[in-house]
């Protein structure tokens, strides 16, 4: 029972169908090189399907359901299933088994316009109705200046994640968990993206979802800009503002990416300053710092190894109120639809005051 409770609570390892920035620069300059969305994630385009096939051990047809269910050109279908099992280390080693993601998705296009929507399950919420478990995390209408190409202007309106930061798949990455892009922070908004091989900029104005018990309580905007330096490096800046009833959060940060071809090594980094102003009661203002660096390298047999270091200073006024982590993730791309992932973390408070960790095996099936 204890394992079940811990497992359910530790749904923390949920990963969603976001992009693999580990492939940027080493494969294509932009997320749109492989994805339909201007900021990556979810459905793959033709090139992305080719990469999924070529980067996996067994290959196989990367299309929806291995190509068994053909769809017309204007319609694209997909989906994501994920689950995990392993050991957590809260005080002593404990086991955990849990579902993580079950979603289907579709996109229909007509000329420069397209409609995207996903639907799936989320955990029951005892404070909500039974219908809470079924939801659509993202659904939007998009206009693309150059349909069929991977650059130009994109405009989206609907429910989606404001573009911000490195956008790694693992939401427990510190810069996402404690920074400006936590899990399920999709909101209704309008986003404008301009993407080229040399640079890209994404601006989103958003309002919290007042209907679907959203995680994001605030209204505001997000901005992310990235400039490529040559073909092997990129730097980015980011900002986000979110005003809720009782607090206001402002995020400002930088990102960096460097690909070392000789070593086949991609280095990723992000640092953010987070300012939270409590406007209720007597009020208060907290400044936090959060950073994450990752080294990613392909290994023989279609493996991919990520080593990450995270740091979080929760409040710069309080000495010692900080935590650090080291992550090691080993991906194995069995075929173009199936990924096995061993993900581990060791986390310590204030350089060893106390901490925890986990080692989990994940199965990810892309439909």
């Amino acid at each position: 029972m204890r394992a079940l409770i811990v497992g359910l609570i530790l749904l923390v390892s949920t990963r969603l169908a976001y992009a693999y920035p580990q492939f940027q620069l080493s494969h294509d300059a932009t997320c749109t090189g492989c994805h339909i969305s201007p900021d990556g994630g979810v459905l793959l385009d033709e090139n992305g399907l080719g990469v999924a096939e070529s980067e996996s051990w067994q290959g196989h047809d990367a299309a929806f359901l291995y190509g068994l269910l053909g769809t017309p050109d204007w319609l694209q279908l997909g989906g994501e299933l994920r689950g995990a099992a392993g050991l957590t280390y809260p005080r002593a080693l404990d086991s955990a088994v849990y579902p993580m993601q079950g979603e289907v998705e579709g996109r229909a296009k007509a000329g420069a316009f397209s409609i995207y929507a996903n639907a799936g399950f989320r955990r029951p919420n005892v404070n909500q109705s039974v219908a809470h478990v079924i939801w659509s995390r993202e659904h939007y209408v998009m206009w693309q200046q150059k349909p069929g190409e991977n650059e130009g202007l994109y405009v989206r309106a609907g429910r989606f994640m404001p573009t911000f930061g490195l956008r790694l798949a693992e939401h427990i990455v510190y810069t996402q968990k404690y920074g400006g892009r936590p899990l399920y922070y999709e909101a209704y908004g309008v986003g404008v993206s301009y993407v080229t091989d040399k640079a890209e900029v994404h601006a989103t104005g958003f309002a919290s979802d007042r209907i679907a018990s959203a995680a994001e309580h605030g209204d505001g905007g997000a901005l992310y800009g990235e400039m490529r330096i040559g073909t092997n490096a990129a730097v980015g800046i980011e900002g986000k503002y979110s005003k809720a009833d009782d607090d206001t959060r402002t995020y400002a940060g930088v990102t960096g990416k460097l690909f070392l071809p000789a070593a086949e090594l991609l280095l990723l980094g992000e640092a953010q300053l987070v300012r939270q102003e409590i406007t209720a009661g007597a009020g208060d203002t907290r400044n936090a710092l959060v950073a994450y660096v990752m080294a990613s390298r392909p290994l023989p047999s279609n493996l991919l190894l990520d080593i990450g270091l995270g740091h979080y200073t929760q409040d710069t006024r309080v000495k010692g109120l900080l935590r650090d982590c080291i992550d090691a993730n080993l991906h194995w791309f069995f075929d173009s639809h199936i990924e096995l992932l061993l993900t581990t973390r060791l986390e310590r408070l204030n350089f060893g005051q106390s901490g925890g960790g986990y080692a989990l095996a994940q199965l990810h099936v892309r439909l």
Partner: protein
Amino acid sequence: MSTRWLFAAVLLAAACGTTPDERPKTFEAVTFEVLAPHCGQVQCHSTFTATDGKEFDTLEGARAALQDLGVHSNPDMRGSTGELVLLLEGAPGYERMPPDVPLAQEDRELLLSWIVDENAAGL
């Protein structure tokens, strides 16, 4: 980005802060600065998920959750911590919370000081 610069930033961040803890001992501060970041994460005790029916990511939710745990003020001006301490410490019969990494000592002290010394003002 240079790893060297990031490492320097981490060391700088580690050197930040003052002693003693100057954070205000108010309901709003302990909710948004302690409970929400660590207990009210979206997949745990949030408005979105509400594990065990408890929400710590809003003032309204935190007020209800703390009261449900037995936290309350007293006429003698020393608040009662209810089951909160038992959960934070993982006392026998209680699953320690948070289950992944415990609250930092500084956060536990702020929380308990607000309850006991400030008589859970604002709850």
